């Protein structure tokens, strides 16, 4: 291949999110992370003879929530299959999963970027159960040089939603941003806590490279299980670079599964037995098809409310706040609601600044969240209004906020009590300015003669005279009027 041809990466992502149910997918064992091994098991999730799976209704509901949030059509009938493979972490020797009749199909998800937004097609959302956890131990309890393998069945049977995208992503950064916003959506809708370190969100990426303008897909490789956004981004970048290098050198990319080692930045081929595995899928005869009623689905759709991406877009378009403000303030549903409440009472940009700036930094010490603090949206709005109106200065505002966070009292009350109110009366302030100008005839003359830096001197004198209760901007204005 000629090096003159520009190449573009084509990326699709497969995400597994652990559904935030109380119990497992097909039995009533409690879900837990970090409990002692094998304390949440029963005959069903240990695959004892004669047991049967029963679908967790809450998992179906959360799956529908996820699928609807991703703009999918909910299948009027979806079917569980058995995916057969024999491995110690899978006690039935088959995983119950959805195959050719998944819960949701044909979706799309908008991803916001500072320069605009792009859309990622969602191929499917389906439900399945997780495998148990294998631990490889040596006599010293270390993984290296494992002498024995043990199984913790606590995780076995955990409900998962698998989300598969179309190959619509064109850069590692986009892939990472997509995943972040997907995570935000899933978290805010209560679908999953999406904790990558704990494994409640896992992502695999399919990566290929092709000449720009081509509509055909190149040979893809699959990058497995990257457990942070940074690793995902770095892994994809490394793979794009590797494939690009190969194509430019006239080599052919081989379809394989790769593992990214964040320590070395290298990609290793996983020559597992899993590859080219025949899973012998067939419909799970122990379960009946999932047939969610139309009304139920519509009820769930209504309950979703405004999705995080829509909220962010609206804030930017209608409230005029920046991409970054919107990104930070939409981090959680609670913070978003808090911001909206404040922004409905005062200027939205000021609200964003105060929440992201002073409020956040003052709360750092206590560890409180804004919505749990004594600075209720009303109190904060009152405070912002006082500053905006010039009734108090911004440093006085900081002082008042600190007091509000302690006592929750109305800011106006605190301002009066502490005598922080700025002199707003133009006549009264004008008289003081006149007096100061008269007391300093030499400097007044120089200022009138154009020595602008003396303005600072006069403002200082006025502030001194008023014991800091004048609005410095106003003072400056009055001095200019008289000397300009």
């Amino acid at each position: 291949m000629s090096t003159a041809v520009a190449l573009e990466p084509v990326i699709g992502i497969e995400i597994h999110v652990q559904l935030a149910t109380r119990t497992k997918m097909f039995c009533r064992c409690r879900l837990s992370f970090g409990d002692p091994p094998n304390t949440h098991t029963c005959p069903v999730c240990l695959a004892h003879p004669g047991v049967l799976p029963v679908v967790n209704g809450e998992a179906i509901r959360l799956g529908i929530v996820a699928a609807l949030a991703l703009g999918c059509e909910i299948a009027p009938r979806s079917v569980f299959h058995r995916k057969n493979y024999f491995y110690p972490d899978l006690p039935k020797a088959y995983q119950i999963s959805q195959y050719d009749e998944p819960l949701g199909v044909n979706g799309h998800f908008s991803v916001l970027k500072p320069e605009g937004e792009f859309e990622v097609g969602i191929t499917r959302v389906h439900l399945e159960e997780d495998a148990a956890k294998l631990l490889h131990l040596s006599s010293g309890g270390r993984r290296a040089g494992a002498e024995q393998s043990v199984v913790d069945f606590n995780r076995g049977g955990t409900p998962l939603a698998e989300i598969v995208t179309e190959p619509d992503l064109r850069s590692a950064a986009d892939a990472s941003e997509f995943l972040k916003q997907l995570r935000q959506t899933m978290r805010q809708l209560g679908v999953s806590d999406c904790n990558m370190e704990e494994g409640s969100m896992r992502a695999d990426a399919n990566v290929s490279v092709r000449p720009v303008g081509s509509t055909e897909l190149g040979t893809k490789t699959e990058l497995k299980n990257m457990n942070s956004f940074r690793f995902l981004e770095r892994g994809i970048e490394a793979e794009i670079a590797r494939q690009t290098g190969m194509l430019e050198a006239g080599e052919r990319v081989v379809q394989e599964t790769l593992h990214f080692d964040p320590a070395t930045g290298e990609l290793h081929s996983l020559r597992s037995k899993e590859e080219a595995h025949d899973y012998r899928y067939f419909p799970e005869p122990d379960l009946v098809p999932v047939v969610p009623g139309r009304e139920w689905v519509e009820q769930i759709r209504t309950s979703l409310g405004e999705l995080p991406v829509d909220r962010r877009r609206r804030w930017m378009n209608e409230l005029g706040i920046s991409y970054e403000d919107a990104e930070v303030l939409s981090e959680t549903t609670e913070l978003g609601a808090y911001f909206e409440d404040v922004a409905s009472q005062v200027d939205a940009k000021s609200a964003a600044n105060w929440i992201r700036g002073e409020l956040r930094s003052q709360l750092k010490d206590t560890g409180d969240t804004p919505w749990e603090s004594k600075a209720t949206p009303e109190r904060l709005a009152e405070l912002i209004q006082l500053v905006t109106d010039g009734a108090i200065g911004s440093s006085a505002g900081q002082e008042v906020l600190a007091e509000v966070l302690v006592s929750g009292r109305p800011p106006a009350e605190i301002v009066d009590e502490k005598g922080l109110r700025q002199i707003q009366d133009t006549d009264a302030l004008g008289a003081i300015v006149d007096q100061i100008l008269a007391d300093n005839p030499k400097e007044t003359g120089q200022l009138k003669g154009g020595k602008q830096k003396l303005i600072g001197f006069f403002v200082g004198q006025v502030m001194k005279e008023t014991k800091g209760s004048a609005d410095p901007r106003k003072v400056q204005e009055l001095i200019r009027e008289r000397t300009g």
Partner: protein
Amino acid sequence: MEALTAEQSIAAITSGQTSSEELVEEALRRSEDDPWGAFLALDGERARRRAKEIDAAAERPPLAGVPIAIKDVLSTRDLETTAGSQILKGFRPLYTATCIKRLERAGAVVVGKTNMDEFAMGSSTENSSYQLTLNPWDMETVPGGSSGGSAATVAARQVPWSLGSDTGGSIRQPASLCGVVGMKPTYGAVSRYGLIAFASSLDQVGPLARTVRDSALLLSHIVGQDPRDSTSLDWWKPIEVPDTERLDGVKIGVISEMLENGIESGVKSATEAATATAAELGAEITEVSLPSSRHGIAAYYLIAPAEASANLARFDGMRYGARAAADDLLEHYERTRGEGFGPEVKRRIMLGTFALASGYYEAYYARAQRVRTLIVRDFGEAFEKVDLLLSPTSPTTAFKIGERVDDPYAMYMSDICTIPMSLAGLPAISIPCGVADGLPVGLQLTGPAFSENGLFSVAHALEQAIDFDALPETLS
């Protein structure tokens, strides 16, 4: 003591003539003396304790402490449950199957677990990895299978009734060969929770008894939805114990394909005689064709092994059951499964794995499912014309031990008359309708889904008219 039916036993206990303790003691005595090899395990201590409790209770439960035997494919807490396989030797389950819990709550007393073909795969109980079961009518013949132990124990009057499981005929065929009543309910009527799976889309628990009334009584206590089995059905109309005498206006269709080649003449003539009896009772007899049923065996031997291949993959010796000594993991798996499963089980696992393999799925499993749909349609069309269908249960009477073990195909043909009903999920009952060369012949009646009550009524009327009162030779 004369061996009472379940109904007679309940009456005798209720009237104070006898007690649960006495009947359970008698059943245990007869079951310990077990020349037929019907039982794999007896649970005397618990059965005696349970009987005492029931006798002492202020209120007598509906089944009054009548003893019952359970096919070893049903999970019984703390009581060894092997499904006839070495791979579950010594396995004591952590829980009891829903249907047994229901029976125990209704006052039945489990005396023991009966022999069966390994994992219910077989038609003679010769595939049990533990022992042979002999037919009480002729100790040189098989009792049928796979619920051979449950059929033989009832025929031998050890217990009045038992539970079996039927996947392609495993209740009806042994009932037929042992001269007792055996009933496979509509798929979903009885919870499968605790039934060790062979072919999940076909397996169904049902009663074996000496009378139709006992069968209905037993079924009435185990039907109904179970939150632990998603395929179990809400059974809104109770199963009634029948007392019908006449069949006026009942339309019975004789399945023409099932009186053709391969049906023994003795079986055919007994079936024809029973048909004539039905007509005398007022039934309208017509002939009905189920053209697709010819492909039943072929479809069944793809679908059932396919499901079995997945169901049996869990037996790896790791979490329960027998475990072979080995130096490494692979050897452990290979030896545990290699030694734990018998030849017929291995044959079906391989067949099923092959039928599901990518590249073969369409040609085998998917096509078999389409045949299944055609068979369902055939039955549907038949039931537009008639109320129920009549056929032999088994093409032959009990065959000699060893006669078919080396010929799987001949063995598979034992279920030619019972498999189509299983594929269609329909209720069917086998009642004894005569004797051919000293061996009982079974008559099969099949109804549409949920027609259990109608089926029992017709079966009861015929049973009364046929008055099958022959006693197995080994007992007389």
